[in-house]
């Protein structure tokens, strides 16, 4: 069963497409990384899923419900932390928790208090006086204490320093371990998410480029290197994601359909980051290639 499914989903602002023809399924219980460069449509996709904006085309369903039309039924089941995690800066931490309690029938105050205590945040401190990392943690607490079935986090760690980033992602991991839920995290940096996620969606140029489980993705992608050659033979059987040529050699990043067996090519495993970069059109960095070849 899929927690989120979209069908030819599109969002247009004036003449600009923020998201285009996006069809994907995010399985229930997965922790999915939504990866793409800035402006690829990550925020738009998450906003559509949580009903903060309405689709221009197509449809999105979360837990089988339409976010806008079934708002009343769906919203108690979805937790959302927006990119800039907007909170009321003049509220104290305690007041922010009270907000969560007042606005969510499914609020679990124990979860909230325990987390805040664990984070050593003073309840009477104004939210505006907390650090960025602490604010992000308060926003996450608000989303978690609601006990959602689906948790959507938009660029949750983008504005955080490495330590706060690690702590935040650990919090997410702990929460996933304790309570069964589907999590979608968006980011433009894949390295952060690899540790946390088991599924991947790559968005680029307003479209979904790759959707699948990370294990499968890593298992199916290979880097082929060999003497300068035409890639058309390979492309007949496998999907060539990225081809690059130097004077002496050709390297291909392919999504293999079955085994790659061709004596002409040397096979290398690739890590997730390289795969993502290839899909985003950056290619595999030249120095890394040399390293691989050597």
């Amino acid at each position: 069963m899929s927690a989120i499914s979209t069908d030819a989903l599109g969002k247009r602002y004036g003449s600009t497409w923020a998201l285009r023809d996006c069809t994907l399924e995010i399985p229930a219980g997965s922790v999915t990384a939504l990866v793409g460069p800035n402006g690829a449509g990550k925020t738009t996709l998450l906003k559509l899923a949580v009903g903060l904006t309405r689709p221009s085309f197509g449809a999105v369903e979360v837990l089988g419900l339409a976010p806008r039309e079934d708002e009343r039924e769906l919203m108690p089941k979805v937790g959302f932390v927006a990119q800039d995690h907007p909170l009321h800066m003049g509220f104290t931490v305690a007041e922010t928790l009270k907000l969560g309690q007042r606005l969510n029938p499914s609020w679990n105050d124990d979860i909230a208090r325990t987390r805040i205590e664990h984070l050593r945040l003073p309840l009477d401190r104004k939210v505006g006086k907390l650090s960025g990392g602490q604010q992000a943690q308060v926003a996450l607490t608000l989303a978690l204490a609601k006990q959602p079935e689906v948790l959507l986090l938009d660029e949750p760690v983008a504005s955080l320093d490495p330590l706060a980033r690690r702590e935040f992602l650990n919090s997410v991991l702990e929460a996933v371990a304790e309570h069964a839920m589907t999590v979608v995290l968006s980011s433009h940096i894949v390295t952060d998410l690899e540790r946390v996620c088991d599924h991947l969606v790559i968005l680029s140029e307003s479209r979904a480029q790759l959707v699948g489980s990370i294990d499968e993705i890593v298992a199916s992608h290979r880097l082929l290197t060999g003497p300068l050659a035409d890639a058309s033979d390979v492309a007949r059987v496998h999907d060539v994601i990225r081809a690059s040529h130097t004077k002496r050699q050709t390297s291909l990043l392919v999504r293999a359909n079955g085994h790659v067996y061709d004596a002409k090519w040397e096979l290398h495993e690739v890590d997730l980051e390289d795969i993502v970069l290839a899909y985003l059109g950056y290619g595999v960095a030249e120095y890394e290639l040399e390293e691989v070849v050597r």
Partner: protein
Amino acid sequence: MIWLGWRQQRTETMIAAALLVLVALILVPSGIEMAHQYTRDGLSHCLGFTPSQACDEAVGSLEQRFNKFIDLIGWFNLVPGLFGVALAAPFALELERGTHRLAWTQSITRRRWVVTKLGLAVSSTVLAAAVLIGILIWWRAPLVRLDGRMDTGAFDSQGTVILGYSLFALGLALAVGAVWRRAIPAVMVAFVGYFVARIFTDTWLRQRLVTPHKLTWAAGRDDPRALWHAWKISETIVSINSHSGLPPMAECIRKGATNVKQCLAVNGGHLQAVFEPASNFWPLQLVETAMFGGVAIALIAFAGWWTLHRE
């Protein structure tokens, strides 16, 4: 949600309350004095249409003493506008900061959020306006008994119009804030709009809301009874029997006149007044309140609709 709404407009509610306290501090002591002087000088005997010499003096003394407060009341015309824009500010501020999205991603519906926020703003504005009306009506009571409440300065601070004015300022600030999503500019634009609408109403629109009466009388006679406590919109000279226009003053004075009115009387002139009689007070109040209130409701509904459908 109501708790959240109150928490968010706490500062603005305090500002409105502080304004009311300020108004009360200025008006309560002088109001007590005025009521006291009214009783002491026996002014209740001076309410008739044909006053005596003693009454004229006593009334004059009262008016002179409290004149500076009567002038000050003019400035209180700004207060309903301040109530409105101040209590609209939390809504615009929330949209500006994007914190409405925090509320919208909790479990309540967006519609309920909008209705609660706007409902709280409206009810606190109505409450603040009601208290202001109470203070102003109480303070002016002696003057109203003596001079009526049809003159612009009195009319604006009596009855229900203040309610309409406050809601109008609120609605305007909410609508501008919903579209613009900047609290400070929205508040300032709305306040200027409020000011312009009030001036326009006072100087041009009000006399056209309920058809004024017209009356002509011989210049030598006392003012007609219908003009008692009325709002005199204009008074003009009509039908001078000998020739058109006013005779030269010099000729008049030779005939023994000491002022223009006598001059007119000597020449058989007539005066014509266009006026709203005292009996038109409530029709005018209600029409004006409904007008401002109606526009306010439309603006508030628009602010809510726009907020719900924009994203």
